[in-house]
């Protein structure tokens, strides 16, 4: 059954490669839903990757490493929030600067850490029973770490939060029309701070996954552009956490297939697909059909000043 082999390996790899994308994207959705775009994902992820590795190496605990990565990602995001929410600085420039700064800082701190083997890596789970099911077992329940499943659960929780709770209404209204939200008594500043910092926590974990689970070692620049795929995926997923799951799977599958299909298609042309899809999807949504409707939060990228509109 050749097709089953292909299906199993593609889905399984898409899941594993999709984990950092999913975590990063959920974080970016959180920030962008509140109206703050954070182009600093690449910087937050690489800082998370280094922190997770260094802490796991010193303490012997990958869990502690990931927690620390979340913390560092959160602090980096806090910085972005301070600049873009409190100081009302240009969010695009602030995010780009965060990416440049994060890559530089992680590289600086990481000097001398390369070439060290990590004994304490995040283990792959073989879920008892489930992993034995033919086809489905190896496809979904083998060679995955706990972060795969937490990420998916988190996507559901974030979806519930955004679309089924009063908090979600508050977040979305801050992202759509902060003036209206403000008039309704919602603390725009607080909501934006929380959403951006939460996004940083998740991006930090996404980066940490790379260095303690996906490929346990530290090397300079190891995120290799994943933060930018996250930006594309956020759009592709239409700022919807559930669609982010499928999006991460799809982009993960594309990446994996660029190596399996190498004999038939130049890998560069498959690798540019995520970015192209992001634009195409936005363009399709412009035709207005509800089926393709994907609209960015109304106030995305616009600092809020009370009294202005």
């Amino acid at each position, binding site marked *: 059954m050749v097709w089953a082999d292909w299906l199993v390996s593609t889905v399984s790899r898409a899941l594993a490669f999709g984990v950092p994308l999913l975590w990063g994207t959920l974080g970016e959705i959180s920030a962008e839903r509140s109206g703050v775009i954070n182009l600093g994902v690449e910087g937050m992820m690489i800082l998370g990757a280094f922190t997770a590795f260094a802490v796991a190496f010193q303490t012997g605990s990958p869990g502690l490493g990931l927690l620390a990565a979340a913390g560092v990602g959160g602090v980096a995001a806090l910085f972005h929030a301070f600049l873009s929410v409190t100081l009302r600085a240009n969010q695009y420039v602030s995010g780009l600067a965060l990416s440049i700064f994060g890559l530089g800082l992680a590289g600086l701190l990481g000097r001398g850490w390369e070439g060290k083997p990590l004994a304490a890596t995040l283990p792959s789970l073989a879920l008892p029973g489930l992993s034995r099911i033919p086809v489905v077992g190896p496809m979904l329940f083998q060679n995955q770490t706990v972060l795969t499943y937490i990420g998916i659960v988190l996507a559901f929780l974030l979806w519930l939060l955004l679309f089924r709770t009063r908090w979600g209404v508050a977040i979305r209204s801050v992202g759509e029309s902060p003036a209206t939200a*403000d008039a309704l008594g919602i603390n725009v500043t607080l909501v934006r701070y929380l959403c951006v910092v939460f996004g940083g926590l998740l991006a930090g974990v996404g980066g940490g996954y790379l260095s303690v689970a996906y490929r346990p070692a530290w090397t300079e620049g190891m995120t290799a552009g994943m933060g930018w795929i996250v930006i594309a995926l956020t759009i592709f997923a239409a700022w919807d956490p559930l669609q982010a799951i499928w999006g991460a799977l799809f982009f993960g599958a594309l990446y994996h297939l660029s190596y399996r299909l190498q004999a038939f298609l130049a890998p560069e042309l498959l690798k540019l697909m995520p970015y192209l899809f992001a634009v195409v999807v936005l363009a399709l949504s412009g035709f207005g059909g509800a089926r393709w409707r994907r609209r960015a939060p109304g106030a995305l990228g616009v600092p809020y000043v009370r009294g202005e509109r």
Partner: protein
Amino acid sequence: MRRLGPFVLEPRLSPSRAAVLGVSLGAVVFALLLAAAVFYGYGRNPWQAYAQIGRGVFGSWPSFSEVLRRAIPLILCGVGLTLAFRAQFWNIGAEGQLLAGAVAATGVALFLPVPEGWRLPLMFLCGFLAGGLWAVIPALLRVKLAVNDVISTLMLNYVMAYIVEWLVHGPWKGPTMRGFAYTDRFPLTAQLGWLPGTRVHWVTLALGVVLALGVAFLLARTRLGYEIRVAGQNPEAARYAGINFTAVFALVMLLSGGLAGLAGVGEVAGIHRMLRSPSHISMGYGYTAIIVAWLARGNPLVAVFTALFFGLLFAAGDHMRIALGLPFQIVGVFQGLIFFCLIGFEILLSWRVGLARKGRAWSGQIGS
């Protein structure tokens, strides 16, 4: 009136030129102080370090010429971006437009059978068109389909980078390069000359300055310039006045991307003399140019000077690595700090800051 810690803020409607200059310089000085702390952390005396960098950059004409060379792509991209920003079009895509220009120039240099005297002019023309057309895509997407300009221009950068990768690994891989991923070297008639003793491809530099003047004239003195400004500042009024948005935005982006495309032509014809991996063609010039244009407040003539300032930063980065022996990542940290300070200080332009007197009533929440 708002309070921010011990300060009170009063809105400032239109900051004076002096205020803009003062605040920008203040931001740079603040960033230099922060960077001094980093130097100190590395066991270097910050003041000696700055003196050494200064001597390195300004010490001789050949080393100062590096500032000019680095500024060339920044001037072209930056001037183009001021035009887009004046129309309130967030063109984050100069990097991809620069690469599009480099691709077109390479095509003309290596594959187009034309009289040799025509080759360089044609490279500039095609590079302009390629960069411009690549930029018209997001313009049309925004006007016709309401696609967010920041996102579309950013994404198209990556699409173009992978196209360049594909070209140099695939169809355009040079037979004389022993299988390495480069195109062949350009013929001599497709190479730009340097100012003696430097690597400044002066044709592109002159082009940048002339075009900066041209764009300034366009914005200030022509009907199109007026339409661009109105479309940017007051879309409602522009619609009322019957301005054709599609035409204005398409034209703005054709020019904006075209200028970035010219920068790409300059880099391949003046520096590399071949097409190679995109990360080696542009040192993120297209992204730095965003700050160049933003710092120039949309004024193309000022952009020439802000571009020179960032050219200086690039050159200073080289000296930090060699003369001070600091790790290369310090350049990224340094750049990030300067960017942060520049945008962080921006608040001082929209708000006049004073010290809060004790007992004054709390008058508003921070930032809300």
